[in-house]
């Protein structure tokens, strides 16, 4: 297959970025999107055309959350329930133009080309996205039975890989789906209920502080989430947050 690639190039955080166009051919339909970029880089290096295109990637099986490209206007490209590394060239037509951009959000500054800094997500988790336990001295694992459907719901929310597609998809660059997923995962479990009110308040405050936008309920995040995290998690976040302001747990 043959493609015309329009790729965002930006040398560093402070440099001005622009689109650069590259033609590439002889690409197998079974090849993954990132392997297509590998081949482009191989050619850019061999022919001394330009510095290879920088893009984050690691596990290449859709679980580490490291990769994330904005492809033809969609985070992770034109397929549902996948990350960029799981996108395959058979999803494109021979001769297609492909526009490739980094996540664009104030809270995710560009490092180089398509690589962005997502440490804001770590900071939100550090604000309270955990259950406070120290190693040892915990009860037996079967001491707290949890209804299966509730455990399954917690698992579905916990499946978030922190890739940032929700933020990239949102016109406000809101991180509500990311935060909602963590709040839901922990609040759905009895172990997590103890700190639930405190947790949601701190995480939301940190999210606002780091420059993520507000949620205006368009649910582009849900539509683009590679792990199919649901908007119900945002509702649950809102419910817990309001409860934390007025409820019994208010401190």
């Amino acid at each position, binding site marked *: 297959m043959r493609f015309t690639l329009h790729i965002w190039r930006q040398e560093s955080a402070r440099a001005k970025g622009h689109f650069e166009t590259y033609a590439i051919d002889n690409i197998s339909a079974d090849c993954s999107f990132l*392997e297509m970029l590998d081949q482009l880089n191989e050619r850019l290096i061999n*022919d001394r055309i330009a510095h290879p295109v920088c893009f984050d990637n690691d596990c*290449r099986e859709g679980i580490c959350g490291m990769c994330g490209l904005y492809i033809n206007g969609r985070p992770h490209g034109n397929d549902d329930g996948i990350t960029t590394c799981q996108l*395959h060239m058979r999803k494109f037509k021979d001769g297609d133009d492909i526009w490739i951009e980094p996540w664009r959000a104030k809270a995710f500054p560009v490092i180089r080309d398509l690589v962005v800094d997502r440490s804001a997500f770590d900071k939100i988790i550090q604000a309270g996205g*955990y259950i406070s336990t120290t190693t040892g001295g915990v009860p037996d694992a079967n001491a707290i039975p949890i209804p299966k459907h509730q455990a399954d719901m917690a698992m579905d929310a916990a*499946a978030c890989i922190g890739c940032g597609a929700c933020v990239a998809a949102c016109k406000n660059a809101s991180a509500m789906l990311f935060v909602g997923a963590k709040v839901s995962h922990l609040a759905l479990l009895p172990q997590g209920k103890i700190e639930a009110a405190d947790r949601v308040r701190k995480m939301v405050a940190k999210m606002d502080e780091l420059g993520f936008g507000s949620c205006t309920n368009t649910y582009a995040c849900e539509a683009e989430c590679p792990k199919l995290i649901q908007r119900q998690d945002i509702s649950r976040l809102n419910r817990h947050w309001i409860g934390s302001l007025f409820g019994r747990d208010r401190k």
Partner: protein
Amino acid sequence: MKLDSKIPSGPLAEKWTNYKASQKLVNPANKRKLDIIVVGTGLAGASAAASLGAMGFNVDIFCIQDSPRRAHSIAAQGGINAAKNYQNDGDSVERLFRDTIKGGDYRAREANVYRLAEVSGAIIDQCVAQGVPFARDYGGLLDNRSFGGAQVSRTFYAKGQTGQQLLLGAYGALSREIARGTVKLHTRCEMMDLVVVDGRAKGIIVRNLVNGDLERYAAHAVVLATGGYGNLYYLSTNAMNSNGSAAWVCHRKGAAFANPCYVQIHPTCIPVHGDYQSKLTLMSESLRNDGRIWVPKKKEDAEAIRAGKLRPTDLREEDRDYYLERRYPAFGNLVPRDVASRAAKERCDAGYGVGTGYAVYLDFADAIQRLGRKAIEEKYGNLFQMYQKITDENPYETPMMIYPAIHYTMGGLWVDYELQTTIPGLFAAGEANFSDHGANRLGASALMQGLADGYFVLPYTLQNYLANQINVGKIKPEGAEFDEAERSVKTRIDRLLSNSSPLTPHSSLLTVDHFHKRLGKIMWEYCGMARSAESLAQAKQLVTELEEEFWKSVFVPGSANEFNPELEKAYRLEDYFELAQLVIADALHREESCGGHFRTEHQTEDGETLRDDERFMYVAAWEYQGHGKPETMEKEPLVYEHIQISKRNYK
């Protein structure tokens, strides 16, 4: 070099208890004065840092990714073993210990493995307390499944994403310590060298991957939790950035490297499909609970399938060869990984392979008929989806095609019972050490080991070491040793970047990946699933030649002081050349077959591994002698006091 495994005295079941009762402690006020460096944020690194931070030590933790949550532990699918006996099927610490020793083909240390089995239950308790959403049954209690090499159900799981959930649990605990200020996080930082002062590990040199700056960090102890070296083979189930360099620089500085030739080849991966391919994707071993592995019984059927004239679903039951069930009736499809991998290779080499000829079927038709599609979807849905996205085939309708691939490395830095390497003050945990899996690791035991080391072993043993460091005072990252280490890193980087002058014609220069792919092919072909004295001698020669060619014609673009992934690949590959030679040397010296190490000269009549306990019942610990020089080897004899050694039999 003297190897002292420091195994505590007393009966096996009491060793760890005795150790803990007599180890040295550090009081809270002194803990605050002691600094620890942890490299790597996978299960071992994150759990160690979180535990040590919570105890009150000052911890600095480093990872090469943009977040600690991305370490490759995240990709582990199937589950984690623990001797809880929740299923009442006869499991116990003793049973898990025996299975692990036997699975490792009697090449692991008894005391370490027993301790691992002993703390396994506490890991599950810890994870549940952190909110890890393990699978549950309708009564709300934890569910289990079976993995290879066991006849009980002791594997806890969270869908097909167990590694992810366990890592997020550890990441949560780590995040809490970061917020409390006991742990300092350094992302996008790569360890480039270890600093040894007066024979003790005292610090590291890291490269900031964003701007290329070299930075120095000093501490009273260094914990290495940087995973394995499977990417030596280029195509593997490891993540693209997983690498062996941090362990290798420690080896260069004097840490012994043990059993490098023990490499695990996982039987169920999606087969190779093209030259551009960058990695292989694992299909969890848990699939072998319900999937049946087969190839056509007749060669002509296999040929017709390869030519696309016949579909697998067209083949009648009696024309299929369920070769694992045939050869190993007792364990069937759930034989250990090395056994299943070799059996697949045997069938494909004999001409019965499907797909490109290097693939076998993993068939769920029976299970779907027995349990219904919905039940299968619930158990393995995400794996089936992953398979379909990659291959464009629907595994609910046609059998999956799978083939073995490099997955895990049992070899690693030599450590004693305390997980300390031969350099005092340098500890290694998780896949980076060699300690618990012998010559073959059982499924769902890597997660167990990583968390055991981090949560329940290092917090004790590291403290025992640090108790003697209280009077040392604050260590500053300065002095001749730090200067020298930083200078040597700079020299290495400069050499790679200036390898080609602007005058070198383009046509004669090649990329780093080009060489890495070729190195991988040599290793897979001559030092992979089957090895012989002849193939290993060839490998040695070919790797030597390839390295020479690398230095003649590799081109690394860009500069040292910028975000430059090509440069990262280059210095990692440079280390792989040396590591490859050591893997080959170790494989050549071990004239027996055991676990993942299969020497074709040493096999039984029906193609099983043939150990030579008389000559090789030891750990081979290698000492670095300088680039291009053969390494020297020390033996740590393996003494089995508790277990009866026998032939490994899964029939």
